[in-house]
């Protein structure tokens, strides 16, 4: 039943730097699903995530999170951020221990100490880094760091998780680990997840619905299976068949 509830919606959303990089007429995301945003480089995928996560203001248009309009420069930003988060392509871990990193969002939300401790331990176990709690974050490998970043992001159980190319720089083992974590998270907590990826195979493995962006515009959106098997637009077809040069 929750599957029909809209958690995120954007209307007439556009961003212009030197030229227009994103222009989306309308797009909505339902609670509990995993969405893939795919498209070649420069399609506006990352810009979309940055706008939704209020790291930048749109040039025009509105973002609705849980039914409320949100803006970067007023009190709605704080409300929105309490319940959504983002993992970057290159994770930035703070110069503290692994456990401290994971606890960051919980501390920001003033969780009680015992609860933080319990949750950090559970998450470390989940991402397979149980022995790493006291390790300094700077000593981790790329894959380990990304797993910690993911654990840190989901620690406070956000309603919406944004992932910006989370596996782009990782080896196949870590890619598989992270994808598995994403699927488990979604299943366990009904967390809505939007994953931006240029990797069509990843989108196919993970996402239930896919949005194909090209030069800032939505070319096609729908069920993952449909987009990959019977795309309507020739550009989508070219991209999912790996024929689009980017």
């Amino acid at each position, binding site marked *: 039943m929750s599957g029909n509830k809209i958690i995120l919606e954007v209307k007439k959303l556009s961003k212009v730097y030197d030229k227009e990089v994103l222009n989306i007429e309308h797009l909505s995301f339902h609670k509990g699903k995993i969405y893939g945003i795919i498209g070649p480089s420069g399609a506006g995928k990352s810009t979309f995530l940055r706008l939704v996560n209020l*790291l930048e203001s749109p040039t025009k248009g509105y973002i609705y999170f849980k039914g409320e309009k949100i803006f970067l420069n007023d009190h709605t930003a704080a409300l929105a951020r309490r319940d959504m*988060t*983002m993992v*970057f392509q290159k994770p930035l871990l703070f*110069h503290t221990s692994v456990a401290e990193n994971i606890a*960051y969002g919980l501390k920001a*939300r003033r969780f009680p100490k015992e609860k933080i401790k319990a949750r950090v331990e559970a998450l470390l176990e989940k991402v397979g880094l149980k022995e790493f709690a006291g390790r300094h974050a700077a000593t981790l490998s790329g894959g380990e760091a990304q797993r910690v970043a993911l654990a840190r*992001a989901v620690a*406070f159980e956000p309603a919406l998780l944004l992932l910006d190319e989370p596996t782009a720089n990782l080896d196949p083992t870590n890619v598989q680990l992270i994808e598995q974590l994403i699927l488990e998270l979604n299943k366990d907590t009904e967390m809505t997840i939007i994953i931006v990826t240029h990797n069509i195979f990843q989108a196919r493995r993970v996402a239930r619905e896919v949005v194909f962006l090209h030069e800032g515009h939505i070319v096609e959106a729908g069920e993952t299976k449909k987009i990959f098997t019977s795309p309507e637009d020739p550009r989508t077809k070219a991209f999912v068949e790996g024929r689009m040069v980017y």
Partner: protein
Amino acid sequence: MSLLEGIIEAFSLILTLDPYLIKIALLSLQVSAVAVLLATLAGVPLGTFLGLKPRERTRFISKLLYTLMGLPPVVAGLVIYLLLSRVGPLGFLGVLYTPTAMVAAQFALAVPIIAALTMIGIRSSGKEVQETARTLGAGRFLTAWTVVRESRFAIFGAIVTGLGRVIAEVGAVMIVGGNIEGHTRVMTTAIVLETAKGHLELAVGLGIVLLFISFIINSLLYNFQGGGKGSVW
């Protein structure tokens, strides 16, 4: 007096803890430490604020800070003197020729250094830290604190550089402090005076103490620049 004799005499003054020398050295440290502490309270937030702004939008103030970093201490001293003098706008405070005035002058010298070096440090990774912290739901103050904490080595470096500059400067404290014995006489002004009076052994002794303090300061700085690894020595 030869330099060697001066140094020998100077060491005996240091080793016997000559009260005149000790008092001056302590006052120097006290004044500079307070000035740098206050400059840190002002300069680190300012530098952090600027470091997180896009480079294009801070071009003017960056240039201003870099210029002020090279501000001749006597000019800073002169400005503070004119402010604090009885006929100046802050004359009613009556703090000219007190350690307070010296703190003010050194504060003015240290703030641009600490702010500018903090700004540079924050620029290298501050934006990403800020975004990560925000993304994780940190409020304004936690975000700011996280940014500062993540750049702590650069910031410590900035503070230590500021301390090194103010403790070794003479022009400003001479003008606003007046070099009053037992009251506003610090190491650098004492060196000027004792040299003029021909008490070279005292001057050399103070010089050695000052060098030693500078050495410690620069060892700390070296340590911070290496990202906090390795011992002070």
